[in-house]
């Protein structure tokens, strides 16, 4: 097993490189993905090695990126589209929701759109507006799309390859503030042996309360669990990984043991993933719950100015505060 220490950004870059190597039909397209290597350098060096027919700098129009990728997919290509920032995906919303998501359904299975839409998302990097949003609920709400998000370099490396290999259209959310965090990545393991794409995973076992998180909030939840352990409370942290479909099998099992559940995400709470998760946990674990499922989320405001984003974003203390409240019920 050849493990390397990679940042999440480099792990994604390495995974994309593998996908380009393994399938000549894979094409990467987006704004600045070529010579520049993307504004976050996730496609760094790929155009140099695979050429401008495989790694395509597109005109600056998001609907055009997704719409032309639909045509390429009908032609038999496997487009991997980069949307530069979360807040810029909305011009492509129609193409994603009305075209990408529905082609397989309305064609009765005759048309497949094996497209991956990569979106760096979430806050915490001190950015100007439209650069810190969490649009996962919009896409998770849309039948026909699958939505996944990675939380660590190993998952970044394997999940991007699994998403590209999948015939489902997949919105692939990358927690941009975690791009520079490092971890061990097994770059030689066969993709077939990787942890399943649409499955949640226990990131830290525990006995006293269950914390569900995904993407950028997994690190926050793990930090909270470390702090809680110092106070003698063992939190079980589950990384959901797949937001559509949701895999709550391990969450149900966990909550039935702990009786307490806190869901954490950066996106606003109103009608967010946490609402759906809380409803399902309540349906499945009603007799095991010692308290209601609580949510720790961004507030129902537009993403605020960077100098107050630390207060907007869920952090270790807000997670622990919610855990405390589940015990005070």
């Amino acid at each position, binding site marked *: 097993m050849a493990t390397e220490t990679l940042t999440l950004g480099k792990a994604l870059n390495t995974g994309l490189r593998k996908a380009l190597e393994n399938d000549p039909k894979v*094409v990467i397209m987006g704004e600045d993905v070529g010579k520049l290597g993307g504004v976050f350098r996730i496609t760094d060096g790929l155009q140099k090695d695979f050429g401008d*027919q495989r790694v395509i700098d*597109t*005109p600056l*129009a998001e*609907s*055009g990126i*997704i*719409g*032309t*990728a*639909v*045509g*390429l*997919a*009908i*032609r*038999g*290509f496997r*487009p991997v589209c980069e949307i530069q920032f979360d807040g810029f995906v909305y*011009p492509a919303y*129609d*193409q994603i929701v*009305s*075209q990408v998501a*529905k*082609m*397989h*359904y*309305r*064609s*009765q*299975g*005759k*048309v*497949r759109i*094996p497209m991956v839409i990569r979106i760096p998302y979430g806050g915490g990097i001190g950015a100007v507006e439209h650069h810190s949003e969490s649009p996962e609920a919009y896409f998770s709400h849309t*039948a*026909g799309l*699958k939505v996944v998000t990675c939380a660590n370099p190993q998952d970044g490396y394997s999940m991007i390859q699994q998403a590209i290999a*999948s*015939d*489902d259209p997949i919105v692939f959310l990358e927690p941009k503030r975690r791009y520079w965090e490092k971890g061990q990545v097994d770059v030689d393991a066969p993709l077939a042996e990787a942890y399943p794409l649409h499955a949640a995973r226990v990131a830290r076992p525990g006995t006293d309360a269950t914390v569900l998180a995904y993407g950028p909030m997994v690190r926050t939840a793990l930090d909270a669990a470390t702090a809680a352990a110092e106070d003698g409370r063992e939190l079980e942290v589950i990384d959901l990984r797949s937001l559509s*479909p*949701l*895999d709550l099998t391990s969450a149900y099992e966990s909550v039935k043991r702990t009786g307490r559940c806190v869901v954490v995400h950066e996106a606003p709470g109103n009608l967010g993933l946490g609402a759906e998760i809380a409803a399902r946990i309540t349906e499945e674990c009603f007799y095991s719950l010692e308290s209601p499922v609580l949510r720790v989320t961004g507030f129902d405001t537009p993403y605020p100015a960077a100098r107050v984003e630390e207060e907007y974003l869920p952090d270790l203390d807000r997670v622990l505060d919610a855990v405390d409240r589940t015990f005070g019920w």
Partner: protein
Amino acid sequence: MAKGDPGVTSRGRRAAPRSKRAAAAGEPELVQLLTPDGERIESALGPDGTEYRVDFTDEEYRGLYRDLVLVRKLDAEATALQRQGELGLWASLLGQEAAQVGSGRALRTQDMAFPTYREHGVLYCRGIDPIMPLGLFRGVDQGGWDPNEFKFNMYTIVIGAQTLHATGYAMGVAMDGKTGSDDGEAVIAYFGDGATSQGDVNEAFVWASVFNAPLVFFCQNNQYAISEPLERQTRVPLYRRAGGFGFPGVRVDGNDVLASYAVTRHALDTARHGQGPSLIEAYTYRMGAHTTSDDPTRYRIASEVEAWRAKDPIARMKAFLTKQQIADESFFTEIDEQAKAESVHLRERVLAMPNPEPVTMFDHVYPNGSPELDEQRAQFTKYMESFEGSAH
């Protein structure tokens, strides 16, 4: 070349001066090869100096006439089916037969078409059974067919969205190295005058231009986007928009099947040889309603419709065939009877279309399925079964 074809005797003659032709047509720079009276024009110049002409045999002329009549008759049958409650909706192509048959017949076998929801005539010319899109309008399916099997994409209802799909597909053609020869592939994107205001169409223009995609943008300007006249979409003739994007544009008489064929064939051949995209504005008129849900008497006057009726695409072709003795009354009668028989056949099959089983609504949401949906399907099935044997 058959006797009586004006193309033989006048071949090589220069087209009339542009100013004179424009005055005669009453529209600027309109490529026309067959006048509303059925007079044949040997050749016509496009705005960039391209000379357009056609070279049909008598059999081919008669074939185009047959297409026009059949397409109109099948369309009328679909309208009747909607009126009788057998279709939920129908978007009639009445008046646009020449633009669709001309461009549809200009496609070569290997070419790919991306239609709106009104290209029933193009579909017919692709050799596709006209029953195929009727499931969509009857409400028994979503209009699902394999675009690659028929070289004809599924109908697209969101205005202009398919122009981007066509552009991407055309980029793929070029990436596959399928341009640069007579056997090259070309792609055609259909849309209307209203769609030219859409961002997607303008983005498609940009993309096709900078990637030099083998693509023909075929705009049927039928003068109305439901109720809104062309003046609400543009202050310049639509074909001139192409210039700003960096490729040629041409306006053709969309009620002239010969000119529609000529300009489309030229544009497709240019594209398949790797010489980039172009825009065709087929100047025509929607003689009927936008769809069967629309009432055009609320927004346009009868005299306007009558003026366009005088430019009817089928009447002018019939006049031409008659004058040139390419076809006689027995031929026209035979075609009418064939059209009637095909429409009866279509009707019978529409009435026989079964409703889908409700549980099939869960099918094909994802190629790889979804455990969440599997569970919903199971719950729904159980719920439905709970009614068995009851009053439901």
